[in-house]
């Protein structure tokens, strides 16, 4: 852990949107309605954009090597209760922060709220603070507070600015997730008390708590308590039925944030807390969670295929996408987990594009039922093209971001849990079926009279979707900068789980990292060559410190000509 003395980036990241929320609410009442709306929207945009700028700065300053927490700020807060203001970012949370920071301004701009703009913008900004806080909190109570803090704004956004059945959807969402949170809170408190009993110190700090000695039975119980809450939030099958209602009845901003950002709080929670705190339970229960993930993939697709409501369709496709994320997480291989983290980001972007475009369609035609839409592509080709990009990314077309994440997840799962991966791969076909059907119904054919006269994307609408489309392409073609930052943190986590459970992922999954780690020890010990086990075959690695470069950079050669595994792995390393 490194403290960053210069500037408390993460604290500001959390407080900035909260402050902007206050400003938005305090916009003077005596302004004309139009002026007030402009002022409020200005505050909202400025607040979210400033947060985005800050998030980008964090990403630029982030140093990936080692994979530990960076930019940590830690302050005693309620020390008698063992709660501290402990924030930090690593490769797992970094891109979730960035993704959230990108989505919030777009969500704000994409929904044009007519009544009570102050409250709307205020709630959205408060929500952003809660989301950011959840992703950077390293204290369990702090995390819980942020996690809960997000419920209230969403409840009010859905109930206040939603569609016909908004009241039902909002209550259902609130009660369901709130019940889930109760389990989480019980789990957190129980864990802290067990820790206190062992060490005599009451603390909720994640790093401290991860050293708690837990028997398998308590690990399993605590894991179930934590996971119940995360499974509702994500949602994971069969805890998903609040999501189609909530996504469908929300205003555009609500849908984008709920599905794009808040769903990730569930999967992120699993990665951050379950894997760190309860590794043995994770390994023990992995088959169960993998199965739920696969069921989610297939089930979400099957229900989506029977849905004629575009928003609900995206909700069920999200269920399938989150199934992939769960699958990759519990595969417990470097590729699977890295893929899951990447896919959390990807899914956020994809689902945002889809919901925003569906919102545009609703603005024009007043419906998102595919049965009432026809032939939209002829009058609105650009709108259709943007939807196509989101759709194809969701289907996993190579060249777009969804493919990279899905591939890594499926590959990583195949290495450790082959048959789950095979069934999940079959699920890839299903997403093509329901999305193409929906596309054909809404966009193909001769347009009906009402659709024939709709206008294509306006300049403003284009600006909203353009950044998402660009990022979707970028992450599909050149995901390296992102993966290079995710992987070290993932390695650390997977390694931790392996040590705690005495399990090993197959050597092909980690050949690269394994050689480097072993070689680094060899150089430190001053040896000139050493033997590395790759799969079943030993391979002799010659080590030489290159004279002109820093200590960590190694020139490696494999001397045993017979071993190709080692040679190719080394030549791959050397060529980097």
């Amino acid at each position, binding site marked *: 852990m490194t403290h960053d003395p210069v500037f408390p980036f993460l604290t500001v990241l959390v407080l900035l949107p909260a402050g902007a929320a206050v400003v938005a609410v305090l916009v003077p009442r005596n302004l004309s309605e139009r002026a007030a709306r402009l002022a409020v929207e200005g505050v909202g945009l400025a607040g979210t954009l400033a947060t985005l700028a800050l998030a980008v700065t964090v990403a630029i300053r982030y140093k990936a090597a080692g994979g530990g927490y960076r930019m940590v700020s830690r302050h005693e807060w309620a020390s008698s209760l063992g709660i501290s203001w402990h924030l930090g970012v690593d490769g797992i949370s970094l891109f979730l922060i960035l993704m959230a920071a990108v989505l919030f301004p777009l969500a704000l701009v994409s929904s044009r709220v007519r009544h009570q703009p102050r409250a709307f913008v205020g709630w959205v900004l408060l929500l952003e603070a809660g989301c950011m806080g959840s992703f950077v909190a390293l204290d369990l109570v702090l995390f819980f507070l942020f996690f809960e803090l997000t419920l209230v704004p969403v409840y009010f956004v859905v109930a206040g600015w939603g569609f016909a059945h908004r009241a039902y959807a909002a209550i259902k969402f609130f009660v369901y997730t709130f019940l889930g949170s109760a389990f989480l809170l019980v789990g957190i408190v129980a864990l802290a008390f067990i820790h206190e009993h062992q060490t005599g110190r009451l603390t909720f700090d994640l790093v401290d708590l991860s050293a708690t000695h837990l028997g398998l039975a308590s690990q399993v119980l605590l894991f179930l308590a934590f996971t119940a809450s995360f499974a509702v939030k994500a949602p994971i099958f069969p805890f998903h039925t609040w999501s189609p209602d909530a996504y469908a009845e929300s205003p555009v901003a609500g849908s984008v944030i709920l599905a794009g950002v808040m769903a990730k709080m569930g999967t992120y929670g699993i990665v951050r807390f379950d894997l760190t705190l309860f590794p043995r339970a994770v390994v023990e229960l992995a088959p169960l969670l993998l199965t739920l993930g696969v069921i989610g993939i297939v089930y979400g697709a099957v229900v989506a295929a029977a849905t004629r409501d575009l928003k609900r369709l995206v909700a069920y496709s999200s269920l399938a996408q989150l199934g992939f994320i769960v699958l990759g997480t519990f595969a417990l291989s470097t590729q699977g987990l890295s*893929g899951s983290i990447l896919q959390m980001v990807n899914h956020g972007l994809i689902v945002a594009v889809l919901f925003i475009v569906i919102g545009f369609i609703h603005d024009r035609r007043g419906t998102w039922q595919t049965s009432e839409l026809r032939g939209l592509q002829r009058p609105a080709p650009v709108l259709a093209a943007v939807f196509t990009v989101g759709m194809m990314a969701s289907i996993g077309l190579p060249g777009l971001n969804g493919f990279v994440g899905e591939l890594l997840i499926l590959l990583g799962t*195949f290495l450790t849990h082959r048959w789950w991966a095979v069934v999940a791969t079959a699920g890839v076909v299903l997403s093509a079926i329901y999305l193409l059907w929906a596309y054909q119904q809404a966009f193909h054919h001769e347009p009906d009279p009402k659709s024939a006269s709709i206008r294509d994307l306006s300049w403003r609408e284009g600006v909203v979707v353009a950044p998402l489309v660009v990022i979707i392409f970028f992450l599909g073609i050149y995901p390296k900068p992102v993966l290079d930052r995710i992987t070290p943190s993932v390695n650390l986590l997977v390694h931790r789980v392996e040590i705690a459970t005495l399990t090993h992922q197959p050597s092909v999954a980690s050949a690269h990292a394994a050689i480097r780690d072993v070689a680094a020890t060899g150089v430190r010990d001053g040896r000139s060559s050493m033997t590395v086990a790759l799969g079943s075959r030993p391979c002799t690695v010659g080590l030489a410190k290159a004279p002109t470069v820093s200590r960590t950079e190694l020139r490696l050669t494999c001397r045993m000509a017979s071993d190709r595994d080692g040679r190719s792995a080394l030549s791959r390393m050397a060529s980097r």
Partner: protein
Amino acid sequence: MLHFAYLMPLLPLAGFVVLATRGRRLGDPLAGWIGTLSVTGSFVAASVTYAAMLQRPAGARREVVQGWFNWIGVGGFQVKAALLVDPLSVTMVLFVTSVSALIHLYSIGYMRGDADYPKFFAYMNLFVTSMLLLVLGDNLLLTFVGWEGVGVCSYWLVSFWFERDTAASAGQKAFLYNRLADVGFLVAIFLVFSKTGTLDYLGVFSHLHAITPGTRTAIVLLLFAAACGKSAQIPLFPWLADAMEGPTPVSALIHAATMVTAGVYLMCRISPLLALSHPAQIVVGSVGAVTAFVAALIGCAQQDIKKVLAYSTVSQLGYMFLAVGTGAYEAAIFLMVAHAFFKGLLFLGAGSVIHGLHDEQDLKRMGNLRRYMKLSFFTFAIGWLAIAGIPPLSGFWAKGDILTNAFARYPVLWAIGLLTAALTAYYMSRLMALAFFGDERWREVLARPAGGAEGAGGMVPHEAPWVMAIPLVVLSVLAFFGGVLSLPWHPAWDPLQWLGPVFGSNLYSPVQSVGTKWALAIVDAVVALAGLGVALPLWVRRSEWPALEPPALRRALYLDDVYDAVLGRPAEAFARFTAVVVDNKVIDGAVNGAGRVVRVAGGALRRIQTGFVRQYALGIVLGAVVLLAWMASRALS
């Protein structure tokens, strides 16, 4: 000069970007010319690369990997975006870019006046980019990228006229069949990586010893499943006939000359793996032979000129797989190239006929067109003789190579292949007779007011503009003389022989006496002439022979209906059941039920439903939970 190899896929990509962003402004026909030029540039780059390759000594020096950047890298999984330039990929690029350039040129005329003219060329350029990525990729994953890319371009181009319901559905069908097959590709990728730790072709081939024989067979068969989808083999061929809904240049380029051969290319690319698995070879060869025969049979009874050609394509692809299965990789590539020439030619010729008859595709409403469309007739006739296998046209040599190999290795498959050759000559002659000979049955078509503005009864079919004529002429020359790519009696002049080192010892070369070879060649020619001799007199005289067109063949063995009844409808019913009953009633019902129980139990609480009260309630609940947890943990420890 090999450094310029990356230009091959990048030029069409640049064309795509320009057309996708600026296409509307460029308009008709400038957009078409830009599309054509970018592909032509790619062909020039390919020619330069080819020339540079020939300068090098045969063998490993002709295998060049051109790295771009690290695409995906996580732990032990490292995949580069890199091109593998070797004789196989360069051969593929040469014929893909040359045929593409000609078909782009043709499209400038054919698509004239279409509302989405620039978009058409944008898709076409993207298709060429993907196809080149497919053949040039240096690892399985990059090939898969191209593989999916051509699939999605095919989807867009088949449903190009998306206002037509049939076109929209056909595009979707093509995509879904391919997608289903691609599951095999993905699982094969995972299997290869888990066994060898790499996906680079050269890397994988250098550790084949690490893979057990059973796994090798599994990998090959999984990839073959993907190939069956892309190359329309049994049981995944029905999509190709529907794909004829796309504009005719699309059928010519994607569904005849290039994309559908990707499966054959893939099998050739993994030949070191395939050669080690005897069972897989038998499967590939048999599926190929049976598909060739069945598709030819179906082709005999089709009435739509494009559908005859589509089933003919399926049949010819079957031949290529037969060749691959018998280890005759060079022969497979030979037929692939020759087929691209003559089938491209036939489709463009058909397009010219369709164009001339104002979008009429029904053979029974054509006839005697040779009087009105002289150029189309001559060029089409060359394609016809070439595919029928009449010496000395290209088809005779290419098909002969395949059958000779099959004869030496699996005589049963050879017999099926020979029977198919007879059918091929028959159905193509039937098509020829119905379209260009016999009675003029198109009079009422042209009298219809729908097509042309004149709508006068005196209209006759008209010949296409010059941009459409040039590709016809060039392709007919290639289809005629294509045989020189690999003539049997002159080893010094055998351009395709440079492929040899790619396949190395995997190439099956039968030892046959000169007498056997001559005998087989004569049998081929006789069979082809017999097919011609039977069909022409029959179909020139009359256009209706119901006995020769049984409904089972016209409906393509009812395969679509069977799939619909066995898979489509049950799946739909299952989806509806899951959505309505399982999700709505069971799962959500349980949730809402639980909610109702709580509500009834706490009926009193309902009366204080203001927001503030709820906040207090929330606080109380939190406090209770904390207390509970504290007590629980005390009790536990």
